[in-house]
């Protein structure tokens, strides 16, 4: 969908003279890397901050970045939904609860003695993830992003609506029941007992 933009790359040769080389960098790549970095940064901040409010706001950042990535993937409707519902309603709920409970920033000394273990565990897990991913590339598990025959209205409201209400009507209805149950549950749980 996006055309290649012509962005000049200035390269400095070792001789001191400069030449202009035309390389093709797609806008898509740039946007991807920027917002991926933002998402990662946000995630790392979520798990690092002492203050719950800061953590919540970092999570909002991550969700926003993910929404942009959704747009890159031609999932416009879903991106907007993510911002509205996830970043909007759910995170507001988190912040509300934090404020309501008046939570203080906690002392973040990693009270557990095994900080080193945890860091190394994280690294190992990341390593495994990378390993699997690369395995997947080699085995051809994933498809390259070549032009795929897209259905009519891919990613638009019309497309989502068609799939949702024709192919997945039953799960849709069940989801509404789920929400109802959750509402009832929440009301019962959070009600003040008369004691």
């Amino acid at each position, binding site marked *: 969908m996006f055309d290649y933009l012509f962005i000049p790359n200035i390269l400095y040769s070792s001789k001191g003279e400069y030449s202009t080389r035309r390389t093709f960098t797609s806008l898509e790549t740039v946007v991807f890397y920027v917002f991926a970095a933002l998402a990662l940064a946000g995630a790392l901040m979520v798990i690092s901050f002492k203050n719950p409010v800061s953590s919540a706001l970092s999570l909002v950042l991550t969700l926003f970045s993910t929404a942009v990535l959704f747009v890159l993937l031609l999932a416009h409707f879903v991106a907007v939904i993510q911002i509205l519902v996830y970043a909007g309603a759910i995170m507001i709920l988190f912040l509300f609860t934090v404020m309501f409970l008046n939570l203080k920033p906690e002392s973040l000394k990693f009270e557990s003695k095994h900080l080193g273990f945890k860091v190394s565990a994280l690294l190992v*897990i990341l390593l*495994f993830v990378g390993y*699997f991913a690369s*395995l997947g590339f080699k085995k051809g598990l994933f498809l390259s992003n070549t032009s795929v025959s897209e259905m009519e209205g891919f990613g638009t409201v019309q497309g989502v609506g068609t799939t949702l209400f024709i192919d997945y009507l039953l799960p849709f209805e069940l989801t509404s029941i789920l929400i109802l149950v959750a509402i009832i549950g929440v009301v019962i749980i959070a009600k003040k007992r008369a004691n």
Partner: protein
Amino acid sequence: MIVWIILFPLIGAVINGLLFASGFWKKVCRGDEHSEHSISSLIASGAVLLSAILSTFYFVQLLSLDPPQRQIIQELFVWIPSGDFTVSFELMFDTLSSVMALVITWIGFLIHIYSIGYMHHDKAFAKYFTYLNIFVFFMLILVLGNNFPLMFVGWEGVGLASFLLIGFWYEDNEKAYAGRKAFIVNRIGDFGFLLGIFLIFFIFGSVNYQDVFGKAIDPAFMSAVPGVTITAIGLLLFVGAVGKSAQFPLYVWLPDAMAGPTPVSALIHAATMVTAGAYMMARCNVFYSQSPTTQMVVVSIAAFTAILAATIAITQNDIKKVLAYSTVSQLGYMFMAIGVGAYAAGLFHLVTHAFFKALLFLGSGSIIHAMSDEQDIRKMGGLRKSIPITAITFLIGTLAIAGLPFLSGFFSKDEILAALYDRGYTIHWIVALITVVLTALYMLRLYLLTFEGKSRVPESIKRYVHESPYSMTIPLIVLAVLSIFGGYIGVPDFMGRIIGLHDTNLFEHYISPAILLDNAKEVGHHLFGHWALVGFSIGGAALGIIIAFYLYYFKPSAPGEIANEIEPLYKASNNKWYVDELYDYIFVQPFSYLCTMAARFDQKIIDGAVNGVASVLKDTAYTLQTAQTGVIRSYATLMAIGAAAILIIIVLW
């Protein structure tokens, strides 16, 4: 319909047993013991009487047939259908089994009548009659069965009934142990018997009498069978007979079996069960007649048993023990006859022995009843005036067993002695002759010490000495008559010829169709003719009687002096030659040691293993429990690690 012969006692037993066990009688009679007893005894005795009448009826029917065809067979149902090995519940009433059936049922009936009086005071009256009927049922199956497994069923069944009845008063431990001893020693014999049956099936391919005996007398078939096998079969079956019929070395249970009620001793351990071995061997005559080795073994053991038992009997002081050893001795006689091939003689002695031994036992029961349960003859004496009927019948029985001429015992014993001599078993004949002397000696001793002479009865008992009621004396009288006149069915030929009768040995003629093979080879020395042999046996009996009279009537102090002179011998004889103690030392103690070891093994090792498994599991559970801390974080950690592990495994494989 010969099955009804065995069904009547069974029905009687079931009715008595169920109704006794359920307390039905008590409710019906509302505590009136007399009517309770009446109903029980009526059912039981009536059942046996019906059997007896039926047996007689079929006996008469047999007589109307030609001798070779004297057989009534009735098949009821197929018991074991197993391919080649088919056993059916089949009954056969032929001459041999008819004799046994008549003896069992009629003498059984008399003993039932006697028991009504004898067991009058007993609490478990109906139980006693149930057991008696069970015994008659199984004994009849034993003699009427047409194949070996069925005989074995009866064999085991009478062993069971014997156990139940010996240990009838089981509250007394000693009596219960006596029952147990009888059953266990019997079992040893049964083992040999079973092996014999297996061998028979292996060789002949069937266990049916007709099939097996038919093949066994067929020379063509038998030429392919090695002689050793027939000997083996004969010996194995004889082992069973040694157990059941109390020969050496398995006779030790019979004297202990006197712990049971006296009518039981009369029926089971005198007249019927112990004779099952003799019946079995007479039935299998084809095997014994073809194997001289087995015959020698049988006769030798029988002779040894006879004289051994007689030497013990002369020093015993308990009436019933004397009679018990006498039974062992007389059984030896029967087996001697069967061992040499004179089957008819052995069976004839079986019949006459049933008469006078039952008489003697019932008489002793009457004495014991009169003496308020005292059984030691040293405390008796001079009872003839107090209990005359018992005394006279007892005397008749004594003289019969001693072999007084013209009483039944004379004819049967004489025939056995003659058979031994005629077939060349001279040594055994001498042993048997000595035993005749001893028999007369100890039996007359018993009579004299009990009924004659000065009374040694303790004062406390003396005034209660009374004659027994009619229910007990009438069977005594009937048996006495039989003991006197019963012998005339088997008068040997040479005697009958004197008064001009031919073929007087009715018994032998009657039995002969069942005796399929009889090696009646007269290879004796013929140094002495028939009459000389008769003279020898009469002389022996007379010698015994005279010695007895001398020792116990005319000079009562003499036995004491003699006993002092030969004290070790006397003590050994009185203690049964210490055979029981020997068995205990050789067999019982090592075995109980083994059992203790096994029990300890079971406790320590097997239980230990089971408990060990349980405790291992418990410890594992305790260890695993530590993982359930309730700390969410560790749960989450473990879940993450687990999920990663699964992913790794899936992707790598």
